[in-house]
């Protein structure tokens, strides 16, 4: 059985700057993978490559055995790749429910969208429950707090029913309480989905991660369990060097 | 708070203004019969805004002057004329709308108006349906003779053909045609080509540019490459400015290659730059310098009313004439009723600033004298050639054998 996601030899060059340099990256069915690395390591670029937002200069991306290089973003979503963004983007003019409903309806033929939404579908209901946003369902998304928006994004992702979920720093800017809730949400989702999470926070990582991939300066530094990665001297150097400069924000255990 | 309040207040004011406009506009003006009461209403319909305002405002001014003079002399049939001025806004549907308004709301006795062929074509059905009268004061492309329009400007055989006669006399047999892309230049050029074929002249090229076009270097290059003896220019409006400026800078002079224009009059000369156009010929029926008593009076009265710096031009004079000609016909008919005025109009002859003008009852065009002029360093135009006598209008060119195929 082939891996769910296979990134081979991918390089990305922006105006002479190598954002990614020959990266190989594989994720199997059902995995919960964490992607870490200092700022500018190429984490978000890698996710952009996988979801089609950025085109690789060289290399291929395969999803479930098929090469998806030529496919546009929405086509990849239709194959089952879903993502969230660092700064959450939800539709402020629409209600929470409408946001979720939109996310759940993309497989419907366009003509059927011409009718009004009547009631709530199972998928949306589930997403509401999972993210505990049921009470806010009829509120406009514009009034949500930062944390609630992130959950709504995750909820929209669940409603899409993707086979691979990519989450870009889901707990950034959250209070510790919100982090816990997001973490629980993540474990819940990871039970029956393949998930890739970009995260800085090592505490969070230690608590939830199984396998970790470390990127540095566009290259894959190391891949392994949390403990293996923590023990690796190169990782310590990369992170400690940075930690000294930027105070102990992203502490490595 | 204050900002929000201001916003609301400003906006609320706006609503009120708009509502008021809507309300008032729906109130219908109640006008009685044109001749009822102590005045006779006449409509003036020209573009007072938009691209054509430059030209048309002056025609309206000339018409207002004529109305003022006629009123000072006792009016028409013992009643003063009351002008109702509307703005065609350089927009053809607006001309149709306003013509409709003048006829059905203001119940005017007649309308003086229009400049572009397009505005006339848009108004024509309105006047024909309502059996109302329009006096159209500008030279045009001919091939039209509406029973409800009087044409006081030249038709093609009173301007284009004399212009060609003049070029032929001057020995300019190889010509290049340059025009704006609309009906007058295209029709004029068809006539020119037929004339050229019958008179041993050659047309070396024919180029059109969109209205309002201002980039003439390519066209200048084409003209220069073709080496014509003369250029026949039917460009309109601002394009003339760009064309003459760029022609001048390419080294073309009036001596080496005269450009005969049929849409450049006294008013346009300064805008083009006297430098750029001095010495080039134009074809019209009237110039400010035309010498006769009626013209001295007209020019003096116009300058007295509108300022000494103002010039008079052919379309203005044709508009000025139109009012007098209509008044004369109404006097002759003893009424302002349309059919009676039409019937009375044939054969009316008046000494006007351009010379003797006679209404041709059959076509409702005028007998007019064609005049070729040269642009002088002072910006005025000096006549160098004329047709000797007023030419009978022939909008369909029926009397010109070579034009047989043109007006099927």
């Amino acid at each position, binding site marked *: 059985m082939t891996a769910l996601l296979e990134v081979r030899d991918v390089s990305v060059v*922006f*105006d002479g700057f190598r954002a990614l340099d020959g990266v190989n990256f594989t994720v199997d069915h059902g995995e919960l993978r964490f992607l870490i690395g200092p700022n500018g390591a190429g984490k*978000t670029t890698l996710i952009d490559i996988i979801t089609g937002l950025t085109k690789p200069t060289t290399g291929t991306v395969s999803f479930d055995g098929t090469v998806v290089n030529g496919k546009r973003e929405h086509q990849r979503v239709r194959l089952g790749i879903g993502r969230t*963004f660092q*700064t959450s*983007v939800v539709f402020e003019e629409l209600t929470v429910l409408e946001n979720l409903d939109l996310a759940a309806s993309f497989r419907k033929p366009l003509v059927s969208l011409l009718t009004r939404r009547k009631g709530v579908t199972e998928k949306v209901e589930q997403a509401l429950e999972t993210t505990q946003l049921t009470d806010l369902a009829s509120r406009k998304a514009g009034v949500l707090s930062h944390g609630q928006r992130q959950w709504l994004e995750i909820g929209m992702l669940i409603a899409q029913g993707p086979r691979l979920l990519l989450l870009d720093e889901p707990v950034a800017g959250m209070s510790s309480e919100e982090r816990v809730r997001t973490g629980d949400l993540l474990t819940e989702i990871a039970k029956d989905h393949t998930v890739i999470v970009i995260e800085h926070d090592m505490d969070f990582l230690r608590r939830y991660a199984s396998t970790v991939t470390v990127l540095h300066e566009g290259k894959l530094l190391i891949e392994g369990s949390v403990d293996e990665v923590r023990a690796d001297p190169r990782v310590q150097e990369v992170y400690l060097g940075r930690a000294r400069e930027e105070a102990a924000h992203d502490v490595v255990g | 708070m204050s900002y929000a309040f201001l916003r609301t207040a400003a906006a609320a004011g706006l609503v009120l203004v708009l509502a008021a406009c809507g309300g008032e506009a729906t109130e219908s003006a109640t006008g009685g019969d044109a001749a009822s009461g102590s005045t006779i209403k006449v409509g003036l319909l020209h573009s007072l805004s938009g*691209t054509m*305002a*430059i030209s048309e*405002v002056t025609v309206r001014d000339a018409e207002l002057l004529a109305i003022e003079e006629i009123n000072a002399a006792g009016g028409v049939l013992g009643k003063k004329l009351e002008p109702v001025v509307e703005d065609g806004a350089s927009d053809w549907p607006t001309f149709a709308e306003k013509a409709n308004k003048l006829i059905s709301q203001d119940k005017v006795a007649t309308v003086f108006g229009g400049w572009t062929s397009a505005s006339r074509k848009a108004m024509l059905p309105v006047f024909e349906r309502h059996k109302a009268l329009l006096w159209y004061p500008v030279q045009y492309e001919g091939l039209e003779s509406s029973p409800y329009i009087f044409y006081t400007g030249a038709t093609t055989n009173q301007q284009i053909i004399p212009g060609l006669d003049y070029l032929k006399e001057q020995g300019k047999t190889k010509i290049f045609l340059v025009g704006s*892309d609309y009906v007058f230049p295209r029709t004029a050029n068809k006539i020119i080509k037929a004339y050229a074929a019958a008179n041993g002249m050659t047309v070396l090229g024919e*180029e*059109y*540019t*969109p209205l*309002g*076009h*201002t*980039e003439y*270097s*390519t*066209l200048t*290059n*084409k003209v220069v*490459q073709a080496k014509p003896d003369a250029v026949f220019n039917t460009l309109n409006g*601002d394009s003339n*400015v*760009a064309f003459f*400026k*760029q022609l*001048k*800078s*390419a*080294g073309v002079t009036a001596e080496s290659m005269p450009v005969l224009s049929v849409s450049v009059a006294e*008013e*346009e000369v*300064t*805008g*083009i*730059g*006297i*430098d750029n156009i001095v010495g080039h010929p134009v074809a019209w029926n009237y110039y400010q310098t035309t010498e006769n008593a009626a013209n001295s009076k007209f020019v003096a009265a116009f300058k007295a009313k509108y300022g000494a710096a103002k010039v008079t031009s052919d379309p203005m004079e044709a508009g000025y004439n139109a009012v007098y000609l209509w008044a004369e016909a109404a006097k002759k008919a003893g009424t302002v009723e349309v059919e009676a005025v039409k019937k009375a109009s044939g054969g009316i002859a008046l000494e006007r600033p351009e010379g003797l003008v006679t209404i041709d009852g059959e076509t409702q065009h005028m007998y007019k004298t064609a005049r070729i002029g040269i642009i002088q360093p002072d910006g005025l135009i000096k006549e160098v050639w004329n047709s000797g006598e007023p030419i009978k209008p022939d909008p369909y060119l029926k009397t010109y054998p070579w034009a047989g195929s043109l007006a099927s």
Partner: protein
Amino acid sequence: MEGILNQLPIGLSIAAVLLLIALGLTFTFGQMGVINMAHGEFIMAGAYTAYLLQDFAGRNAVLVALPVAFVVAGLMGLILERAAIRHFYGRPLDTLLLTWGVSLVLQQVARDLFGAPNVQVLSPTWLQGTFGPMPYNRMFILLLAVGSVVGIWVYMNRTALGRRMQAVMQNRQLAATSGINTGQVDQLTFFIGSGLAGIAGVALTLIGPVGPTLGTYYIVDAFLVVVAGGLGQLRGAVIAAAALGLLNSYAEFWTNASLAKVIVFAVIIAFLQFRPQGLFVLRSRALT
């Protein structure tokens, strides 16, 4: 054959006119995302400046007018920016409509001040005559365009202010957090961009009509240059202007002026199929 060869300098001179008009636009568009529909009326203001200066400078008014028009149009731009546009950053479509309203008003103001007919601006005697197929006044415009491009390049790359401007253009928020007063930079950009329109206006008095609607004749073409060249891209604007100038010149030579305009539009649509962001793009990760 000679005709074909002549079209080359003609194309370049059309390009020079396009470039002069588009330069200011590409700046304000690029840095602030502002589509200034009143740009054409700043051009008109520059042309009328030359007209008014004739009373003092006679035929050489055009030369004197260059710096004066730059300041006059620049100040008009500055006022517009301060009074209105700064409240609308991030709302490009609203600015577009707002400035269109401003352009209508300015046209009517010009009509009331100077009258509806075109006015006469005499060109200097030393600009009369031709060098080969190229009239002197066209060469003057070409030099003016080249001079403006060089000036802007030096300003942007060799002065502290210019570098700040580039920083704001590339990342407004980052520039703001690194201590650049973005408001001030915006004002300066608008002043320069509008000032360039003033210079273009003076140049246009040499070849075209000077009237209240002068700006409207050139504005659509100038926008197309900006679209094809890419936002705020000096080299993009230069290349796009050159390409459109030559295309215009040859398309008109082989067909006619009407068809040439249609061809240019079709080519731009086709071009955008390959380069939807124009020739050159500032890359950013921002998601809209």
